């Protein structure tokens, strides 16, 4: 890759144990993600896509290998330092949105900002801007139960980008949506990539969703088996 690598993962190994059974989920994965890239990570169920995404986002740690994000050795971070790093650098989007049902859309988007030193008024401004960016400025006071699936996912995206993270990681962001809503979410992610220059990694097994990305990698049985341009 000629472009500067924002994410540089080398020889990643991850093992899970189910009883006495050992499952080698990742077996020496190398992956570079360029700054400003929109990458689709594909593969069948159980191939290790989400595990790889979790490692890249500092939600889990590899048993071997290294991960550097913007030159920072994430694999060496633990506990509060890793939490701080996540808060500063990573925005997550989940398949099932993971919104807190007792908080409004604005309350959900504000959650990452509570960890910053921003005052209340500034937080509100940031929340309003993020919700406007995902087209939900008029839904700020709605609770998740009052929103459609597509709108909930937009709130999830607004929450992921409100702190302007270095990296946006999306785990099956359209997996729970109908085609139309899924397309709207993909349009939104594509817009964030093209207009805001966001570095995005999307885990999906939907070829149509993957087609929106600039680059696609396929993970199979814990090995990065194929790269499709």
């Amino acid at each position, binding site marked *: 890759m000629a472009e500067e690598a924002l994410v540089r993962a080398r020889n990643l190994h991850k093992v899970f144990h189910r009883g006495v059974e050992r499952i080698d989920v990742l077996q020496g994965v190398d992956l570079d993600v360029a700054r400003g890239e929109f990458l689709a990570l594909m593969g069948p169920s159980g191939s290790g896509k989400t*595990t790889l995404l*979790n490692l890249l*986002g500092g*939600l*889990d740690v590899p048993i071997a290998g290294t991960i550097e994000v913007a030159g920072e050795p994430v694999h060496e971070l633990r*506990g*509060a330092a890793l*939490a*701080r*790093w*996540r*808060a*500063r650098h990573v925005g*997550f989007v*989940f*398949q*099932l949105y*993971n919104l*807190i*049902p*007792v*908080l409004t859309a604005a*309350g959900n988007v504000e*959650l*990452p900002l*509570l*960890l910053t030193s921003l005052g*209340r008024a500034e937080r509100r401004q940031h929340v309003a801007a993020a919700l406007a960016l995902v087209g939900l400025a008029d839904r700020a006071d709605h609770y998740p139960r009052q929103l459609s699936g597509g709108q909930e996912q937009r709130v999830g995206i607004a*929450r992921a980008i409100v702190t302007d993270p270095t990296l946006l990681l999306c*785990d099956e962001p359209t997996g729970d949506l109908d085609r139309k809503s899924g397309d709207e979410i993909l349009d939104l992610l594509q817009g964030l990539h093209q207009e805001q220059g966001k570095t995005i990694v999307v885990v999906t097994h939907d070829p149509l969703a993957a087609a929106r990305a600039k680059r696609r990698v396929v993970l199979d049985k814990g090995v990065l088996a194929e790269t499709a341009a």
Partner: protein
Amino acid sequence: MKFLPLVWRNLGRRKTRTAFTLLSIVVAFILFGYLAAIDVAFSFGVDILGADRLITYHKVSLVQLLPYSYQDRIAAIPGVKDVATAVWFGGVYQDPKNFIAQIAVEPERFLRVYDEFVLPEEQKRAWLEDRTGCIVGRKTAERFDFKVGDRIPIQGTFYRKSDGSSLWEFAVRGIYAGAQSGVDETQLFFHYKYLDEAREHSQGETGWFTLRIDDPERAADVARAVDATFANSSGETKTSTEKAFVQGFANQIGNISAILKAVMLAVFFTILLVAGNTMAQSVRERTAELALLKTLGYADARVLGLVLTESLVLAGLGGAVGLAVGWLLVTVGGDPTGGLLAVFFFPAGDVATGALFVVLLGLASGLLPAIQARRLAIADALRRGGA
């Protein structure tokens, strides 16, 4: 502070469950208030008794009488500032159920030594001038609707008059109040001279002496000196601090305080289980949400703090309402026996203890769920939560 809305919202998530938990905490702390007041009642206000007062009574037993003449000899002992004598009368007003402690005293000395009994000046004068006069405590006056000027017939059980009659009549000349919470406002005091002159036996004898001393630090020395004065006489004495005396008297009923504390302990243990269960359920239901917070960068310690804050708010709300309602019921509602208990109030010290229990309850009920939340592995929790 900025996380409080999140804590508040989480508490409101299962309104019925939160309401029932809150209600049980409220009831527990109301009960705490009542038990604290009953504890004080059965300790006869021992904690507020003067540290500079000693009681001298017969070495054999409190019911044995002492010569009245001891009073001057006690007054002459170095360190003794003042002395007042008293005799337990033990009569019945209309019905044995209408218990009133009736005590014969020498009014002037008595009011000097017991300055916590507050009496309007004109009532004090009226009592001093009327040998058959008496004063009654505010609570007893309210209980039996006694007014100044009323005549109270008391049937003597131990003392009969020299004319063979056992009916004693006292004119109410004053109604006293306590200078502070905890002062017994249920007693009836009348003239020792009236008793001594009219009774058919035991003339020149008295029940006990209350001594006011110069220096509470020297209480033990003065007590020894008093008892030494009457050693090897037919009326040997025992002198102790008023607190020890009243405590000993209270202990005759049984260790009520220990029983009340055991009841309280059982109540708090139950409430701990109720509140702990609520918090545990609440955390278990929110596994995925707690994992989400960690994903967003909330450190383990912050997640632990959020859960603990939640349990502290729950306990704090319930505890504050319970203590306030308990205080109101005890203070405004008053003695549930209608004046039978000599003192009945929710002491400030116990309110502070209650506040401490609130904090302990909050911490204890939230600790295990908070640790559970702190230990939550994000990837596992998100997987289990279906993210």
